[in-house]
């Protein structure tokens, strides 16, 4: 069984009987002591014989989960996220154990997770790309999310826009999306903007963002986002689709390499999804690459797509990464 740091804190406050047991080796105990929790130390093969509930604690909560399952231990709990998550909870009163599987990653950690939770992200367009982008960013811990789209859900959207269901047809996309996203993370602060980005509202809508996601379906809006991001000096994570293919790039980092440098001049009309056609999985793949690159950008994880254009072909699964 699993117990989160917050649940364990409730046990302490309500005087539940339990024994917390640190099963880590001496070196890990020395490097990262458990803060603010009475506990004993024991080897995993020599756990205390007690009628009290046991809470086993390791560094990340992975080893203890394995021990409980393998030995079929009853009345024994694994502390989700381990000492890392407990200490972060103890220090900040924020339970980050939910993200324990990603905070294990050296490049993320508790510090990175805190950074994600304090970041402000704007997604423009809640269609094929916007849905997977929003879903992945909310579930990975982005709390401040603004979603912008002036369209209502149509029946033909459902095959590639999984935040919406049959009953949402006719509703504004941002409202339907907010309901689904809020169910994934009740503490997220989702600002649903039910009109399109334009020259008049653009600066105001994007001004406080750390990163802007371009999930639009037309080049004129893309160019406007590019212009606004340049003016506000905000990075833009670009994504676009064509049949079985997609493009992703991180543009306008430190004022360099924007969409207008990628495709300068006037661009003649290009087919969009309703004209060229699209399989529902493609926006899922490309949108998730955008979300991945957003997290890498926010946490300064390298290599990434800053100043590079990724071309992905879902038919042959070939990619090209072009330096801008």
């Amino acid at each position, binding site marked *: 069984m699993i117990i989160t740091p917050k649940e364990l804190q409730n046990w302490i406050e309500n005087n539940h009987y339990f024994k917390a047991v640190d099963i880590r080796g001496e070196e890990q105990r020395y490097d990262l002591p458990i803060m603010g929790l009475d506990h004993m130390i024991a080897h995993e093969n020599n756990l205390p014989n007690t009628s009290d509930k046991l809470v086993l604690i390791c560094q990340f909560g992975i080893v203890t989960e394995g021990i409980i399952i393998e030995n079929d231990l009853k009345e024994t709990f694994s502390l989700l996220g381990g000492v890392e998550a407990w200490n972060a909870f103890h220090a900040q009163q924020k339970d980050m154990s939910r993200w324990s599987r990603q905070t294990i990653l050296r490049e993320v950690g508790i510090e990175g997770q805190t950074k994600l939770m304090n970041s402000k992200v704007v997604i423009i*367009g809640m*269609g*094929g*790309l*916007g849905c997977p982008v929003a879903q992945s960013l909310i579930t990975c811990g982005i709390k401040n999310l603004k979603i912008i789209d002036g369209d209502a859900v149509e029946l033909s959207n459902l095959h590639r826009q999984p935040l919406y269901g049959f009953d949402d047809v006719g509703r504004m996309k941002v409202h339907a999306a907010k309901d689904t996203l809020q169910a994934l993370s009740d503490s997220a602060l989702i600002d649903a903007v039910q009109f399109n980005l334009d020259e008049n509202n653009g600066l105001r809508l994007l001004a406080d963002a750390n990163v802007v996601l*371009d*999930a*639009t*379906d*037309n*080049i004129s809006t*893309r160019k406007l986002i590019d212009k606004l991001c340049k003016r506000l000096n905000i990075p833009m994570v670009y*994504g*676009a*689709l*064509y*049949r079985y*293919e*997609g*493009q992703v790039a991180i543009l306008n980092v430190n004022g360099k390499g924007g969409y207008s440098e*990628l*495709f300068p*001049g006037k*661009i*003649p009309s*290009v*087919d*969009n*999804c309703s004209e*060229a056609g*699209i399989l529902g999985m493609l*926006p899922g793949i490309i949108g998730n690459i955008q979300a991945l690159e957003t997290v890498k950008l926010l946490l300064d994880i390298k290599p990434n797509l800053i100043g590079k*254009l990724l*071309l992905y*072909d879902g038919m*042959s699964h*070939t990619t*090209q*990464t*072009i*330096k*801008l």
Partner: protein
Amino acid sequence: MIKIKLKCFSQVKYALETDELIFELEDGTTSYEFEKIVRQRSGDKLEGVTLRIAVNQEYVKDDTELYDGDEVVLIPPVQGG
């Protein structure tokens, strides 16, 4: 003569009906000349399509000479989302 590999994406792929093509070209052929050759090969299917040129995974802004073994991608803008 030089051999140039063209990797095809999006409209270029559908116009030429292939993922990849090898071209045998005169020595000294430039990127702009190569783009024209590709457009001619497609008939009129790339007419009006904006293309950016990358040689060996790097954008080239100006006309540049191609060399034997170079890999070229002609990149069109796409807009679906």
